[in-house]
């Protein structure tokens, strides 16, 4: 599903050049639930942004679901993110002035789906994350855990190949964090490919594989999971 080869990422500020990722090589198969761990500054968030096609890299190549992403232009990357990546953030990043279902439907808006389909799909997904009765609520009227569920529904709305989660429990108390992780577990069981950054071992333990990063190098790529299920099967119970 994800094939990173020799990925190098540098940041420049003035004459200073900082290399945050050194020739990363990482393969993630479809259906894996991978936790990327590492100390602050190890480059784990940068790596996650690259996997999510949010950022560009300086060297190496990246294949996402058999499509070469290397060197795609800005608009193509945006379309790619909309259709193949589902983002879940630490701070939820819901738009405060629109209702829960409209937040969920937002990626479909940019994918050009018709209004009726957007609403139906958003309501279905809210139902799946247990928020059917909160569809018309504004984000501010929901608890943190509920907001993150809305964000997860939004991440699923275009049926992406990969869910990319950046510290998804970082803003939640531990009980709520465990609830969100069990939701991740369900998604994993249903065949979703999930890449998550966390610095908490308890959270990382939910994943099927842990990748350790230090100073921009993969120091431990973990044990790739062997799964028989394909994503096509998982989509059946998705709808």
């Amino acid at each position, binding site marked *: 599903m994800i094939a990173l080869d020799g990925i190098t990422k540098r940041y420049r500020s003035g004459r200073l050049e900082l290399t945050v990722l050194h020739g990363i090589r990482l393969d993630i198969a479809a259906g894996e639930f991978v936790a990327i761990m590492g100390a602050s500054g190890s480059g784990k968030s940068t790596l996650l942004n690259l996997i999510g096609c*949010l950022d560009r890299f300086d060297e190496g190549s990246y294949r996402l679901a058999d499509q070469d992403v290397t060197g795609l232009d800005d*608009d193509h990357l945006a379309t790619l993110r909309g259709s193949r990546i589902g*983002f879940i953030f630490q701070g939820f990043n819901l*738009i*405060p*002035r629109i209702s829960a279902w409209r937040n969920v439907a937002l990626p479909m808006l940019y994918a050009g789906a018709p209004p009726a389909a957007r609403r139906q799909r958003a309501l279905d997904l809210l139902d799946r994350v247990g928020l059917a009765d909160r569809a018309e609520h504004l984000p501010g009227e929901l608890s943190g855990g509920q907001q993150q569920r809305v964000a997860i529904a939004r991440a699923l709305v275009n049926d992406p190949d990969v869910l990319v989660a950046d510290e998804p429990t970082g803003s939640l108390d531990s009980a709520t964090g465990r609830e969100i992780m069990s939701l991740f577990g369900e998604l994993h069981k249903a065949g979703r490919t999930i890449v998550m950054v966390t610095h908490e071992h308890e959270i990382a333990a939910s994943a099927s594989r842990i990748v350790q990063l230090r100073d921009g190098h993969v120091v431990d790529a973990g044990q790739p999971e062997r799964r028989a299920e394909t994503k096509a099967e998982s989509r059946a119970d998705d709808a």
Partner: protein
Amino acid sequence: MIGGTDRVTQALAALRDNRLRTALSVLGIAIGIAAVMIVSTISRGGNHLVFSELETFGLNSVWVYRDWENDSPLERRRDGSGIDRRDVAALDAVTAELGIRYLSPMVQDYSDPAARRGARFANIQLIGASRQYAAMVNDDLTAGRALMSHDIDERLPVAMLAPDVVAKLFDSDEDPVGRTVDIGGRRVTIIGLLAGKSRDFLSSIGSAGGENANDRVVVPWTWLQRVRGDREVDHLHLSVEVFDSAERVADDVVDFLSRRHGDHFNYTRETMASYIVTTGRILGGVAIVGTIAASVSLLVGGMGIMNMMGTAVLERTREIGLRRAVGARRGDILWQFLIEAGIISLVGGVLGLLVGAAVSLIVVWLTGFPLLPSPSVIAGALIVSVVVGLIAGLLPARRAARLEPVTALRAD
């Protein structure tokens, strides 16, 4: 690709979210548009007023008369006006070649004449003119007929009366046509009534030609010569076939007269065309100054939008990052903010038009100034307001669109 309806819905939601800020920006544009509209309406009204009054003199008019400047009063008495009946007859024969449409020798009585009818009395302007005079100065008749060749040739004591004279000499239920009045001790038969003409504005600004047109009594110039006991024509009033030829025709007539009199007299001339050019220049200058002043307020309104959109982009940086993450292209972000700016300015423009129309109506009501609402001004104001909004929105919108998703998502 995101549809137009969705874009507008999104923009409206964002604008509703900041009602006060939106309202203030709308107000800024509304004031600017209203100011531009009021200035343009008043300036158009003023133009209309001035030109409709100039029209009462005939827009194609040319006046030719002897240049008295360098002559002593003694010479004047000895030599006369320099224009006589034979000149008029000679000129009449060549009007077509010279491009003259109407020609009237003008004979006036400057002795403060009055018209009487029994005990009634009216101060008048006594004007001796030809049969073409009424058509030349755009006089309409409300009753009776205009002067005819017969009246001129036979030097008949007949007259056309302007409304103020009629009002002073007759009751409103009387029909003056066919009756006689006494002018300078002579009985004159009324053959026609002239419609009223306004020169109020020109009079009020002290223009030389702005005398009241409604106290005129127009009689055959030949008859007035007989009354005066001379053969003098005070000046020639003519109108040209083609407006643009006024200057040339005026010079030709001056040459014509000079030649006929062996350069014994100097002649000078005036053309309405030159007054119109001057008037147009003055009114245009006033309009430009007014428009610039009004445009400044529109500019301030535009800067209000720019400021508001700049703040909105800053506040919503994370939102922009999120939208980019879920598939929004740079163009989508650009349009999102442009449409918000466009809606503000369009609503402001419509509001400004309404305010401008209301103020214009009040001005009409208070001053009686003629108002000319024009579809082109309305369309122009709306287009200008939207263009101002889009230009003002462009800078902030571009800044939003250029944000890198990663950077935007990290914003506080």
